């Protein structure tokens, strides 16, 4: 197995290690396209705000305040970025094998639901921090199974993963709704005071430890550390491991890879499972780090935002970090803008749509440069 991947390595496009630092053909475009698209889309967003007759300055002030107006807001924006970042990392992982995982939202939902179930039933009394680690693991595993299912369908039945992950999302959301609607599942016991369809609050030991326990205003938790670890891990696996190389080979030419002895089916399942697992972990972190109880539609919007982040990063984990921070702050800002300045947060959706279209529509620019 190792020997085979070594032969593959010789044919794989070189990563340009050593020698004078020289950009690969098309590398400049790779960075320029998403940056230009993002800047242009944000300008369009500003124009739209201006066209509504509301004060752009007022909207921007509200936007800034929501993004970074206080230590708490900065922390909340970063927490949001972490969730998007995990989904984005999952996206680029599967995308390395030329798979498009658009099921981030369903994977978050399933992961969050199972993490809640574990935290409420069984994990709370465990020692040595297992109380919060176990729900994280269970959430990750659940997401991995949910994503892996799309991989199995792809490798065994040839089902297009875009369609299957979308459908799995549309199935996952009612499942979460069901779990918080039914007292026999995760809904908290009905009392006279409260009958909201949500789970009970998870116990303190199952919540993620705070990064700055002495600063009660900081919402940052160890999810940030986990995210940094995940970024490094994904980078190492994709760039410097036989597994990453095989993924790349399958992505470039599945038939040739199979002929070269790579078990492509297993690889497809594994990459979708890892993508789903990262989504599930994001869901678990959202519940255990911030929300503390399961609600219907807690995952709303995170899947597509994460997808856009992954798309913009063009396969680079560092790009995911930048994109996740951008959208994490944008989202927080847009919510504040809607509340304070009465400018609909949908403006941000418009910008995101434009970015996706622009980036997808300019791949020919990059391909042309790269094939020269």
């Amino acid at each position, binding site marked *: 197995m190792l020997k085979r991947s070594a032969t593959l390595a010789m044919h794989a496009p070189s990563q340009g290690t050593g020698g004078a630092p020289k950009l690969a053909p098309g590398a400049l475009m790779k960075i320029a396209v998403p940056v230009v698209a993002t800047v242009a889309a944000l300008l369009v967003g500003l124009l*739209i705000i201006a066209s*509504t007759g509301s004060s752009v300055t007022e909207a921007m002030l509200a936007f800034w305040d929501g993004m970074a107006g206080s230590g708490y807001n900065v922390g909340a924006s970063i927490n949001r970025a972490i969730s998007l970042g995990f989904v984005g990392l999952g996206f680029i992982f599967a995308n390395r094998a030329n798979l*498009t995982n*658009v099921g981030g939202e369903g994977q978050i939902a399933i992961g969050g639901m199972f993490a809640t179930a574990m935290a409420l039933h069984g994990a709370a009394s465990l020692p040595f921090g297992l109380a919060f680690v176990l729900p994280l693991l269970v959430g990750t595993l659940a997401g991995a199974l949910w994503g892996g299912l799309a991989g199995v*369908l792809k490798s065994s*039945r*040839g*089902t*297009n993963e*875009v*369609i*299957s992950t*979308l*459908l*799995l999302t*549309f*199935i996952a959301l*009612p*499942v979460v*709704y*069901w779990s918080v*609607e*039914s007292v026999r599942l995760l809904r908290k016991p009905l009392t006279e005071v409260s009958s909201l369809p949500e789970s009970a609050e998870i116990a303190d030991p199952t919540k993620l430890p705070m990064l700055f326990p002495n600063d009660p205003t900081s919402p940052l938790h160890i999810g940030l550390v986990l995210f940094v670890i995940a970024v490094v891990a994904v980078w190492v696996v994709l760039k410097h491991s036989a597994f990453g190389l095989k993924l790349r080979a399958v992505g470039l030419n599945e038939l040739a890879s199979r002929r070269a002895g790579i078990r492509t089916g297993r690889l497809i399942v594994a990459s979708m499972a890892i993508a789903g697992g990262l989504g599930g972990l994001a869901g678990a972190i959202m519940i255990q780090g911030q929300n503390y109880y399961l609600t219907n539609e807690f995952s709303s919007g995170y899947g*597509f935002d994460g*997808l*856009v982040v992954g*798309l913009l990063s063009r396969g680079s984990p560092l790009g995911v970090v930048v994109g996740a921070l951008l959208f994490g702050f944008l989202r927080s800002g847009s919510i504040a803008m809607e509340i304070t300045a009465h400018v*609909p947060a*949908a*403006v*941000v*959706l*418009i*910008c*995101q*749509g*434009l*970015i*996706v*279209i622009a980036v*997808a*529509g*300019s*791949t*020919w620019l990059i391909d042309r440069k790269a094939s020269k």
Partner: protein
Amino acid sequence: MTEDQLAVFIGSGLRLAMPIVLAGTGELLSQRAGVLNLSLDGMMLTSAFAAALASWLTKSPMVGLMVGVMASLALAYFQAVLSVTLRANQLVVGIGFNILALGATTFLYREIFGPLSRDTIPGFGKVNVPWLSDIPVLGPALFQQTGLAYLALALVVVTWALLKFTSFGLAVRAVGDDPRAADQAGINVTRTRYLGVLYSGALAGLGGAFMSVADSNTFTEGMTKGAGYLAITAVIFGGWSPWKTLGACLLFGFATALQFLVPAMKLDVPVAVLLMLPYVLALFAVAGFVGTNRQPAALTLAFRRGG
């Protein structure tokens, strides 16, 4: 189940299926030409909004319908430019358009209708088919629909005939299966694919407008609720055949209508199960566990002349 409930169930099942039938039938042609138009949902939403707005402004649902279809066609044209001419990833472009349409319609709705969202929009009345609508139970359910519903069924027949009996249909099938060979045989691949996408845009526009000016007489944010995705799966479910696609669309419509029937019958089935039912069916369908599928060989693949 009482007779009334049965009549309501059949009537609402058909009514809910119609937007999916329209969008699905258009999508069928586009996919047969090799373009998976994933922005169907965005097109429907755009048309639903544009139709509602125009109908509200002019007090004419017919104008609304036409404006809705034109808005959807404009979106389809951009989709074709990106996915056919620029050879962008069809699926990613589709998702982009869906996000854009959701954002734009939500934004415009709040800006324009915000304070007067309770207003009903002038919509189409129901057409009673003489004699037939007097049949007990089935009559009112089947033959008291809006004109658009009958148009939808007519368009299924038109699309079937178009694919089967016309040179355009032959070109569409050739382009979807082997664009290179079609090109060598003198068929204009780009033009055929543009027409396919535009056709699906027009029908998705009708489907979206159906939702706002023929069915509910109102617009709500994100009102398609994934109907476009259902239409796409119906095409795959239906094995790229017009009649089976129609069957799949009707199945989805009736599965959705169950959400209203089951509580009315006081059955103890969780709503969530009914909500996910169409998608579970669709998943089984796309996984090939139901029916035999042979997809157009060049589906989602861009064509580059001489490349």
